[in-house]
């Protein structure tokens, strides 16, 4: 009998542990029931005329500059206190859970495609009424940012940061290979990359991991070659098109001039390699500038706009961040005041590490050379938002998953593009 009890207990313990495993896998709604909303006791309504406290989330790279912005806010709005919390990179899963559970902060700083997704899901508060009430001119903002933040005709965020990719190039490496000017077409890029690849110096830095970085690189190449990921009305995948196959082939061709660690390299790895003079060219945004200069102040580099192919008009992705109000916020009026404040050009210029939502360069780049800043500024006019479809994050993940097959298993560009096209079609259903 003792043995039976012992065995039963062992089974029970095993079952309990396995239950623990399941709990870790439960859906957001499952967690919704088990967590209570964040305490709001310290908040006082505006109607009472007493100070209001609102909570704000942003990425941790903004933490250093926050005190300066907060000081201005406190001076202008002594009646509204901001409790800011800064999250690690790519925290969209944490944002989603908090928004779904009703535990989100009042104001969230969201990457543009997150605004699209959360707006589609009804997790953000529409701002149109507030915009109309305050007669705010949203046309002052970059069009692509407004497009990404507008879902079914409703505006869900105001941009405080906008940027697009440019090509960073090492002038010394190009010069040593016989090139005094950067390549203007993707065909030229292949030629320059081949000439620059020598020993442990590589011609081109590609992203092979991090779905966000990888997909931005591929889509930028695709758009600047005349293609796109979806059709004009965003109802069907265009990732099986001839241009998409050609772009996948371009990615594969450039991989020959990339470091062997290609599939392990994200944007930060490429930036590190570029800063240490190991790669000649790579695509990135102006946000890499300060880090490159910090890592290697003597690096002789410049930026140029993204090359094109097939005679296509230049078309890149508008990246950026907007401030949005959570639908669950109990202090929407105060939250709106903060959204307006942070997207204001003079404040955004301090807060952003790229360009403001109105395309003005960040204050921190005032002393940088024009040959670096100007291409970044000029490129913004060619930048367009990613399609405002529900599953844009999933589509970007599918781009990485399927093109990795091509890069790691010697699959043809046609086959990989076909699989990507199928995966995207499935996600659009």
């Amino acid at each position, binding site marked *: *009998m*003792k043995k039976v*009890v*012992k*065995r039963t*207990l*062992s*089974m*029970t*313990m*095993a*079952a*309990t*542990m*396995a*239950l*623990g*495993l*399941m*709990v870790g*896998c*439960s*859906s*957001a*709604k*499952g*967690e919704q*029931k*088990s967590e209570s909303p964040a305490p709001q006791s310290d908040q006082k309504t505006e109607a009472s005329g007493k100070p209001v406290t609102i909570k704000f989330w942003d990425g941790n790279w903004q933490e250093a500059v926050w005190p300066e912005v907060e000081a201005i806010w406190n001076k202008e709005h002594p009646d509204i206190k901001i409790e800011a919390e800064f999250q690690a990179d790519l925290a*969209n899963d944490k944002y*989603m859970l908090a928004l*779904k559970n009703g535990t989100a902060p009042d104001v969230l700083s969201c990457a543009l495609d997150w605004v699209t*997704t959360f707006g*589609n*899901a009804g*997790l953000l508060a529409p701002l149109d009424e507030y915009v109309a009430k305050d007669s705010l001119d949203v046309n002052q903002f970059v069009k692509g940012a407004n497009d990404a933040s507008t879902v079914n005709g409703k505006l869900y965020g105001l941009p405080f940061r906008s940027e697009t990719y440019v090509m960073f190039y090492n002038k010394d490496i190009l010069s040593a290979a016989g090139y005094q000017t950067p390549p203007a077409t993707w065909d030229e890029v292949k030629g320059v990359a081949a000439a620059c690849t020598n020993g*442990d110096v590589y011609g081109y830095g590609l992203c*092979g*991991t*991090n*779905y966000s970085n990888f997909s931005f690189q591929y889509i930028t190449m695709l758009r600047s070659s005349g293609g796109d990921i979806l059709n004009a009305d965003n109802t069907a995948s265009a990732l099986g098109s001839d241009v998409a196959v050609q772009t996948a082939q371009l990615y594969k061709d450039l991989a020959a001039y990339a*470091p*062997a*660690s*290609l*599939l*392990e390299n994200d944007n930060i790895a490429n930036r590190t*390699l570029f800063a240490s003079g*190991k790669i000649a060219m790579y695509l990135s945004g102006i946000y890499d500038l300060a880090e490159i200069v910090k890592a290697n102040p003597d690096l002789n580099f410049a930026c140029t706009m993204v090359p094109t192919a097939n005679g296509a008009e230049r078309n890149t992705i508008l990246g950026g961040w907007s401030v949005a109000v959570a639908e669950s916020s109990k202090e929407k009026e105060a939250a709106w005041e903060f959204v307006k404040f942070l997207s204001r050009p003079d404040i955004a210029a301090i807060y952003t590490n790229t360009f403001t939502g109105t395309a003005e360069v960040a204050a921190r780049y005032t002393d940088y050379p024009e040959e670096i800043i100007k291409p970044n500024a000029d490129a913004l006019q060619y930048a367009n938002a990613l399609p405002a479809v*529900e*599953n844009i*994050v*999933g589509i970007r*993940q599918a781009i*990485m*998953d399927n093109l*990795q*097959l091509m890069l*790691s*298993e010697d699959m043809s560009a046609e086959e990989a593009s076909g699989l990507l096209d199928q995966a995207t079609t499935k996600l659009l259903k």
Partner: protein
Amino acid sequence: MLRKIKRSGAGYVLPAVITVAVVMIYPLLYTLVMGFFNNTLFLEAPVFCGISQYKKLFEDKVFLGSITNTLVWTFGSVFFQFGLGFIMALILHQPFVKGKTLIRILLMIPWVTPSIIGSAVWKWMYNADYGIINFIFSSLGIIEKNQTWLSNPKIAMWSVIAVNTWKMFPFILLMIEASLQSVSKDLKEAAVIDGANVFGIFKNVTWPSIAATCYSTTLLMIIWTLNAFTFIYAMTEGGPAHKTEVMAMYIYKRAFMDYDFGIASAASAVLFALSMFVSLVYLYLTREKEGN
């Protein structure tokens, strides 16, 4: 009945078991139920869809691959973790080993190092261009050209398993070494008097004393590893091309990239069934030996 429970000691652990089970039971049932509902971030309410999501899952090559990857990841990790931990514990237990406390502290470093920090360090060590592992191996003439440890589909999983082994073998070592200290010296001396050699002592005295610890530690490691994906997430993101995508990673991607909680719930239920099956088979295989 109450007397029997009291005598067995079940009453002592029952409150804890009940509390843990109650805290977990709701999410568990919710997840199992949601496996039968179409439930995405964009739907106002879940829609019942029968077993269609399970059908979709088992038609999905990536999911089927993730089951294989999960088994390789789990049994590969546990095999090496246990093997290394067991051997190290036996060596450390020997009387001729000096400075045991210092060695124990040093061996515990991987276990107490946060996984995410360990991942970052190992990722650079594995780096195909500038990693120290390629440097050492090529300096010793073991490899001719630099290897892509984390992006070669044939070796990426084993590279991550090596990191998981590094992280968790100290736990096994700790458990087995503690168990070895409880082995009766009198029995060992008696065995020596009876003419037993080293292997005879191990087989007839040491192993019976530490077997229960080994079985329960191994079971724990199996369950933890089935559910673990920190190293995979931080080092390969499931790549290259799903080659290291275990079920937990698949579930994460479906829930937080595609926002499809229905499919993620169905996949969670399959993972639950798999872990239960593995645990029960393991318990069945070890029950008689444990009894002895």
